Structures are given as structure tokens and as C-alpha cells.
């Protein structure tokens, strides 16, 4: 404790110092005029060649980059993994503040897009003709790259329409029906617990990404963003719909107290003690690699509904490729992004297990009829594609969702371990988010 933490603190101090020093000297660029780059310019740039740096953690991009280099001799794609999720955002924010080492292309998840779009740190791709691609992508991801504004700040790379992954073996063993509504889900949870005291319907210890997706599906729209004016309100009917059901799951101890992505979690998914997962369509690759023991046990079903017979869905995760304003060689960078996310690169990525954001691929026969051996030969993509088409596209995240999510467990998470209710937890999450937004210069309304 002594030595290590002291060294760590000093290190942190230094990092802060370095990171801040430069940001303190930075000044606003003012309003950058919209860049117009024609197809001609892009072709010329490809012929001329050059090097672009891409910050991304998506593994399927490796092959795409190699193919792209092969197709355009003279172009070099430097693919860098600068960390996953929040780690990369910290690095990117620091590079932007320092105005040094900013990549030409960066992978950014939809929930984090707002922060960069609003502060004009991303190039608006409208000038490149990206707005013509609106029909190319499915509505959820397209809404994500617009980040609640008029611009197009990135091209969607993948998407995460939600579905219910369930362990068929467990359901069959206890003769439980696969739920189609959340009310049935609650009943199934009780039945399962009665049949096997060790088994839980799902594991949840409070996860911001999951909760916001559930609210999205339930019709709640807690965030309204209009430039720097933000409204946060968790008191709508949709939020109540979600908390009423989920509170019962918590109160009756029907949720396994296991945090996602931990060893315990993977084990639970493998041995049947965690019976379902409501997650994004990118999950199959993770199941196949992390829960090998249960291959063949799992299946995919449509996400349970709040109203019987409805077909509402939501996005959970997913990311896009953006061009940071301070990056170089925009024409070349855009050429790569278009190739990877709307062009030939999409096929390459699908072949390697990615889930597309492009409607053509979602609807293609080949994609839909892919049989997943992990799911016992089920054509799971049909379920995902249908879900993708049913995502309501009027959801928006906060312009500082990365921070808000980081304090989710401080507030809402308390509902899982104390007498605080989920609704009260959301209320304190709202308060803390309002406070931070105000401190950061937003006009925040409750």
C-alpha cells in the first residue's frame, strides 16, 4: 500500500499536470467552416498515397486495413489500439487538448459521440457527402452518429440491437417457457429460482449501458439535448415501467449478484446458474470465446416486450469511426472509413464475426441465413436483424455520458445493495448528472 500508492499518486499528479498544462494553453479554434471534400479529392488523395493513423480496438479492422493497403498501394494504415472504451477516450481527449498526436481516425461508441460532436472535436462528414448514406445504415446507429444534431460526425461501424440470449438447456430442464414479455420474464425468474435455488434468470449488479438500453426500449427518453442545453428527467412513464418490474427482481433477490465480465459471470453463464442475458447483437463472439463449455446450450430470442405483442427494441453498445477535427489527411481518412464501414470492408468484418450497421447486409439472405453452431445451428441473425429494424431512433445520450456512466454505480447501483429503490437511485443519478453538467458549463434543466 505505502510505496505503491505513493508512487501512483505522484504518477497521477504528473499525468494530470502534463495533460492539463497543455489544455490550459489551448484555445478554441472558433467555428470551423464546413469542409467540402468531393469524390474527386478523395480519389486524388488515394492516388497520392500517404499514411493515416487509426485508433481503434475493434479486432476485425486489422484485416480491413490490410486489404485497404493492398487495394491502394502507397497508402499505409497505422492501426493503433490506444485502449478500450473509456481508456481510449481519455487518451483521445488528452491528445486533442495537447493538439499533438491526434489520430486521423478514431473509434467512438455511440454513447460517447455527443461529447466530441458538441465540442466540435470531430469533422462533420456532411461535407464529404456522408449525409447521402442515411439509408445505408439502420436507424439506431445512424441516429447515434448524428449525436442529436444536424451533422454526421462518424460512420457507423457496428451496432448492438438487443436480443434475449437464453440457456435453452436450463429452460427445458425446468419446463419453463421462454418469456416474450417482461412480466413473463419476472414469472420465469421466480419459477427458475423455485426449481433451482442456485440458478438466476440473469446477473445484474447495476450497469449503466444496460439500464439506459432498457429505458430506451421502455419508451423513456431521459435525456434531451439541444446544443449546450440539456434536460435530464427520469420521471417519465417509460422509466417507471422499467423500475417497477426491475425493482421486483431486485427485491425478491432474483438477480445473481455477479458483475458482468468478471470470472464469476463467465462461469455462471457456462454452468447454467445465469440463465439469460439481454444484450446487444455483438454478444455471440464473446459467448463463443468466453463460455466455451456451454456451446450448443444457448439460443437467441427476441427481446421481451413491455406490452404484449409489441416489437420495440433498443441499441446496446456499438461504435463508429470518426475523423477528429485535429487529425490530418481528411480525404484519405474518410476514404478508409467509408471503405471499412460502408464499402467492401463491411463484408470482411462480417466474415470475422462483427455485427453490421448497414441495412443491405442486415437484410441480405446470406447474412440472415448464417447458422451459428454455438446456438445449435440457429439462424440468430434473423432475430438480430428484426431487432435492428425495430429500434426507435429518437433516443439521445448526454453530451457527457462517459462521465455519467462512471458514477452509475455510486447512485443507481446502491439500489442493488441497500434499501434505496431503483427509482430513488435514478433520481440521485439525475442529480449528480445535473450537477456535473452545470459545472461543465451546460445549461441543465431537470
Amino acid at each position: 500500500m505505502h510505496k505503491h500508492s505513493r508512487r501512483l499518486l505522484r504518477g497521477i499528479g504528473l499525468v494530470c499536470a502534463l495533460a492539463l498544462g497543455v489544455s490550459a494553453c489551448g484555445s478554441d479554434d472558433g467555428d470551423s467552416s464546413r469542409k467540402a471534400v468531393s469524390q474527386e479529392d478523395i480519389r486524388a488523395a488515394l492516388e497520392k498515397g500517404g499514411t493515416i493513423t487509426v485508433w481503434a480496438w475493434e479486432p476485425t479492422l486489422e484485416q480491413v486495413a490490410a486489404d485497404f493497403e493492398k487495394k491502394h498501394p502507397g497508402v499505409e494504415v497505422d492501426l493503433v489500439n490506444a485502449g478500450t472504451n473509456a481508456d481510449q477516450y481519455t487518451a483521445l481527449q488528452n491528445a486533442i487538448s495537447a493538439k499533438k498526436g491526434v489520430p486521423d481516425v478514431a473509434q467512438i461508441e455511440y454513447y460517447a459521440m455527443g461529447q466530441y460532436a458538441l465540442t466540435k472535436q470531430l469533422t462533420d462528414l456532411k461535407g464529404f457527402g456522408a449525409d447521402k448514406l442515411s439509408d445505408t445504415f439502420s436507424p439506431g446507429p445512424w441516429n447515434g452518429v448524428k449525436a442529436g444534431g444536424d451533422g454526421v460526425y462518424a460512420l457507423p461501424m457496428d451496432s448492438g440491437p438487443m436480443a434475449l440470449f437464453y440457456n435453452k438447456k436450463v429452460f427445458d430442464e425446468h419446463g419453463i417457457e421462454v418469456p416474450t414479455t417482461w412480466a413473463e420474464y419476472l414469472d420465469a425468474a421466480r419459477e427458475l429460482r423455485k426449481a433451482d435455488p442456485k440458478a438466476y434468470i440473469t446477473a445484474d449488479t447495476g450497469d449503466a449501458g444496460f439500464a439506459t438500453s432498457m429505458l430506451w426500449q421502455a419508451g423513456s427518453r431521459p435525456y434531451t439535448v439541444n446544443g449546450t442545453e440539456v434536460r435530464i428527467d427520469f420521471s417519465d412513464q417509460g422509466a417507471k415501467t422499467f423500475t417497477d418490474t426491475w425493482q421486483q427482481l431486485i427485491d425478491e433477490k432474483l438477480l445473481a449478484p455477479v458483475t458482468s465480465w468478471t470470472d464469476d459471470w463467465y462461469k455462471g453463464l457456462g454452468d447454467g446458474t445465469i440463465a439469460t442475458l439481454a444484450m446487444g447483437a455483438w454478444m455471440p463472439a464473446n459467448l463463443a470465446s468466453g463460455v466455451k463449455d456451454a456451446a450448443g446450450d444457448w439460443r437467441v430470442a427476441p427481446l421481451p416486450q413491455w406490452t404484449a405483442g409489441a416489437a420495440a427494441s433498443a441499441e446496446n453498445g456499438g461504435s463508429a469511426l470518426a475523423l477528429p477535427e485535429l487529425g490530418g489527411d481528411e480525404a484519405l481518412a474518410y476514404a478508409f472509413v467509408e471503405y471499412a464501414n460502408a464499402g467492401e470492408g463491411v463484408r470482411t468484418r462480417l466474415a470475422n464475426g462483427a455485427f453490421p450497421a448497414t441495412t443491405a447486409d442486415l437484410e441480405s439472405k446470406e447474412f440472415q441465413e448464417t447458422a451459428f453452431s454455438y446456438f445449435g445451428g440457429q439462424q440468430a441473425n434473423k432475430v438480430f436483424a428484426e431487432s435492428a429494424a425495430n429500434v426507435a431512433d429518437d433516443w439521445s445520450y448526454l453530451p457527457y455520458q462517459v462521465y455519467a456512466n462512471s458514477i452509475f454505480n455510486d447512485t443507481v447501483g446502491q439500489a442493488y445493495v441497500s434499501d434505496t429503490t431503483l427509482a430513488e437511485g435514478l433520481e440521485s443519478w439525475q442529480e449528480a448528472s445535473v450537477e456535473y453538467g452545470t459545472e461543465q458549463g451546460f445549461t441543465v434543466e431537470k
Partner: protein
Amino acid sequence: MTTPQPSAAAAPRPAPPRARRSRRSWTGWGFLGPFVAVFALVFLAPIAYSVYLSLFRDQLIGGTTFVGLDNYAQALRDDRFWAALGRVSLFLAVQVPVMLGIALLVALALDSGRLYGRDFFRISIFLPYAVPAVVATLMWGFMYGTRFGLVGDINGAFGVSLPDPLSPDLVLASIGNIVTWEFVGYNMLIFYSALRVIPHSLYEAAQIDGAGQIRVITAIKLPAIRGALVIATIFSIIGSFQLFNEPSILQPLAPNAITTDYTPNFYTYSLSFNGQQHNYSATVAIVMGLITMVIAYVVQLRGMRKGV
């Protein structure tokens, strides 16, 4: 002290030639220079920079502005900071006496000479200190698991249901347990080496006077290692206030029990890496540093005064 020092005023002697004097001063700097340069660069500069940072505020909307001491005012009113400080103070009040008590007992036992296999015990008690804190915490975190960890296995094997060590009520005690396990050996070694330098003649004299073991401990051993006790206490106080590794590594296992403001250090980390609030983070770090300094200093003063 008694070396005659010719003072310029007293002796009407001609001043030494300029060249010699300047060479002499340069020689001094030659020795001091490398240290001063490194010291200024690694110690003073970061502190000065943190202080500089703490006077600004950087917003997502609006950029960087000079705010004077506003950040300090905010820190003093910050409930989250004070709650974190309260938590580590509680930790300090319970964990440090327990840890130092055990370390002292072990050191006395080893020093008594009545222990068979002394060297083996000494090394095995010290061993946890050699395990990196990160590894130790991961290991304990795994043991604490109520489903698949040691606690879970015990529950399964004996059909009992032990309380969850990672629940909000117990997690501080669980962290205390890890820290105690890690640092008993380290403190034991400090005490043990202090005990080893006590002259044997004192023990012989005590024996002749008919003093028992307890009397030897209270009248000879403890007073003799007072300095070591004070040092170990100060280290432990600083360590408690800087608690970071253990909570940050356990957090993924107990995200609701260990909040992002669990300890002051963890709070500064979260402020800067989740919230991009580098300036406020620097402020909190400085305030915490000052508090730690004051408390450590008070303990040192008290320890020394009693020693006289």
C-alpha cells in the same frame, strides 16, 4: 565546534583572493547540483504545477478560466471528499492498531529466542510484503467470492452462509484484512531489527535483578524500540490516507460497495480520469496531502516528546 573560524570582521587580514572564493563556492554546487536538479524536477515541479493547476477550471463548454481559490472552497464543501476522508480515518483507527499490534507480537516472539524455526517464521511472515499489492488484492478478491471463491466453497462444504465480504458493510474490513496481511511482515521486520540492537548486557542485568519476561518487555524492549514504533505508525497513517490500490482493484468485483469516491485518492483518480476534472482533482490531492502532512507531523511530535 571548537575549530577556530577567522571572521572577516575580527581579523584584519586581507580577504582571500577572489578566484579562490569563487572556486570554493562552485565546488559546493558541483556536489549539490545533481541532487538539486533531480529534486526540483521530480518533487518540486510537480507540486508547483499541481498548485498552479488548482487555480484554474476547465469546462467542456467555456474552456479554461482562472478561478483563484474557488476550487479549494469547493473541496472544503465537498461532501464526497469528506465522506472519503472519514472512511480512511475509520480505517486508520481500526486497521493500524491491529496491524501494528500483531507485528509487535510477532517481533517479540521471534526475538524471545524461544521459537523453534525462527528464520522460517520470519521469512514466511515477511513473504506477503514481497507479493505486489495488485496481485495480493486480486488473490484476496478471488477468495472473497461468495459464489466461486473460497467463501463460496466454505458455504458449499459446510452448508453455512457466511456474510459477503464484498458487501457495502464489510468491504472496508475486507480491505483492512488484505492490508494487514500485506504489511504485518514489513512492520514486524522494522520492530525486529530494532529489538536486535538492544545490548545483551541489559537482559543479563534484568535477569540478575530477577525480572520476568513481561517485565523485560515492558521495561527494556518497548522503550528501546519507541523510535521504530513511531516511524511505523507514521508510515501506516500515510499509507491509510493514501489507500488506493486495494479499493481500485476490488471495485470491479464490488462496484456498488466501492464507489468512485471511496477513498480520497480514488476520488482524485476518478475526478481526473472519468470526469476530466483535472484542476479540481489537483486541488483535492493538495488538500489531502496537507491533511496527511499535518496529522503525520502531530504524531511525530507526540511520539518524540514522550520519548524524551
